């Protein structure tokens, strides 16, 4: 088979952004530079960097970054010779001013993240990016909370606002491959020419399989992180994803050995230990709760003497979304109160 016959995918690597959730946003400039250089050497097309919640999101609410946005962006920009630099922003956390600064720093790809059913929140910033000349992506987060039809409609609106690529994040790691096939298929049909994005999480061990399902359903941009570096059970493991996609008949343009080297470096330099599908991550995946809540849930539950599994299922019942970290405190307090009452 010749490479011309293979369908080209763009691999988007948010190791240095989404991975931050696993280390409370404490990656230092040296670690950022060394991984970015290794990713660049592997010819990974897009290397995304930032606080875990993106531009402007360093905060007590979710964690203060070790390094400012400016320093993160200038460090990674200097390290990249081939790869394009990506950034991420949640409207209401970052602002157009943050986007402008990121573009000044040389960000090539700018992603606006919104909850699966809230694409109208991205209208202003996608419009801004269309005029600013960066490649604008829109990603619908917590996409398991919406139907394929709803996601398709939201995605089409994102393209109308100016998104040049649009897609979904399985933020809670809840999907099985058939769920992904249905959703990506519906989005591809709704958006026409715009490339479709899939970003998987590995709570139920399905991230690579889900990503292949996404590509088979027509997604052209697939996310993966070195060693799966990310919140909870982690993201799609990049160095598994790439060769599996290649064997499945897709071209990625990535050098396998250099990719494996980058992943080894990531394990050594970025993380205390690679993510595992721990019991709590399985629970958060089943409950359909944002994986980034894990540290806070485990810590607060331990302090209050409640079962963190109960906390996750209750957060799922309340349909809590990313950014509502303060609700964890309420749930823990309520559950511990109930226990205390029951004990009397």
């Amino acid at each position, binding site marked *: 088979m010749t490479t011309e016959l293979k369908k080209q995918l763009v691999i988007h690597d948010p190791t240095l952004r989404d991975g931050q959730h696993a280390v409370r946003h404490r990656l230092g400039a040296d670690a950022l530079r060394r991984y970015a250089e290794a990713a660049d050497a592997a010819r990974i097309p897009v290397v995304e960097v930032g606080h875990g919640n993106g531009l402007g999101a360093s905060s007590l609410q979710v964690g203060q970054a070790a390094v400012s946005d400016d320093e993160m962006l200038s460090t990674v920009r200097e390290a990249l010779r081939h790869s394009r630099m990506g950034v991420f922003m949640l409207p*209401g956390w970052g602002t157009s001013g943050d986007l402008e600064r990121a573009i000044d720093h040389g960000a090539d790809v700018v992603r606006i993240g919104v909850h699966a059913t809230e694409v109208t929140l991205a209208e202003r910033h996608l419009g801004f990016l269309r005029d600013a000349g960066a490649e604008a992506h829109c990603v619908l987060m917590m996409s398991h909370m919406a139907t394929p039809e709803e996601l398709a409609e939201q995605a089409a609106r994102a393209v109308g606002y100016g998104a040049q690529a649009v897609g979904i994040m399985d933020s809670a790691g809840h999907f099985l491959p058939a769920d992904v096939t249905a959703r990506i298929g519906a989005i591809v049909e709704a958006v026409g020419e715009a490339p479709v994005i899939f970003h998987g999480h590995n709570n139920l061990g399905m991230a690579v399989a889900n990503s292949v399902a996404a590509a088979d359903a027509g997604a052209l941009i697939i996310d993966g992180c070195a060693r799966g570096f990310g919140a909870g059970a982690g993201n799609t493991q990049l160095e598994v994803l790439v060769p599996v996609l290649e064997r499945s008949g897709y071209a990625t343009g990535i050098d396998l050995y250099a990719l494996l080297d980058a992943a080894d470096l990531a394990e050594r330099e970025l993380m205390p230990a690679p993510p595992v599908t721990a019991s709590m991550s399985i629970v958060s995946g089943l409950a359909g709760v944002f994986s980034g809540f894990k540290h806070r849930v485990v810590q607060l539950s331990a302090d209050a003497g409640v079962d963190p599994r109960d906390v996750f299922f209750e957060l799922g019942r309340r349909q809590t979304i990313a950014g509502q970290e303060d609700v964890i405190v309420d749930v823990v307090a309520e559950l511990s109160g109930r226990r205390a009452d029951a004990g009397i």
Partner: protein
Amino acid sequence: MGTCEPLTVAVIGTGAIGQDLVSKIDRSPTLDCRLVAGRNPESAGLRYAESLGYATTAGGIEAVLAAPRPFDVVFDATSAAAHREHWALLEPLGTLVIDLTPSKVGRMVAPTVTGVSPATGRNVNLISCGGQASVPVVHALAAHFPVTYFEVVSTVASESAGRATRMNLDEYVATTGHAVSTFSGVADVKAILNISPAVPPATFRTAVHARIADADPVAVRAVVDKVAEEVRSFAPGYAVVACTAVDDLVTVTLQVMAHSDVLPPYAGNLDIINSAAVMVAEQYAARPERTARTGVSA
């Protein structure tokens, strides 16, 4: 003061904020709503105002300017960008403009901190919903404790956030942060807004995080409880739902339930800002120089 003729009032903007404003003005003995102006003739807000018997128009600001005599008060419940244009047109008329958008144009008011008398200037800005919820607390905490950093994280229900709010997130972040800094004297601040699609809708809440060395949780709680009682004088659904101090991190979580004829209970974000806005207008109606001219329409 009841002898005074009511002030003539117009409301621009017929989203959820505009609608609730009309309902609150309807209950006020000193405010007489003469016009409700929107852009969309089909809007629910215009129909609601009609149902109460008020004059309505889909002619927007032009219809307000075309009134035979300038209104005493114009409430602007549109968007930050639209407000800047509206203010340029209204300023020459001498009208008191009460701005519900996060435009940062007028003098910022948070009733329990600044009072509600529009003593200076004819443009009063209500900051933002998160600003109304947090400013009383950050003002009091900064007065009693050595605060080095404030962060204000608000969550509003998706159902309560209309298009203008969604298009104004940048202004919300900038204006809320500016108010927190101005009224606390703390330079290092951050404001964040979440729009939650949770079902049932999440009640409006604001978490105030503060860095305070050696904070005494009991002393913090006492200060915050006193503030909450003051705010309840105009926003009865305002409550402290959590107050913790761990190491140097204090977190005060505030919740506001709406008490309104038209808003669902979760939409406390709209209730608190509108209650504050109507207080400003009522205080203006009761100002001494006006009561001295009893019977004379302003």
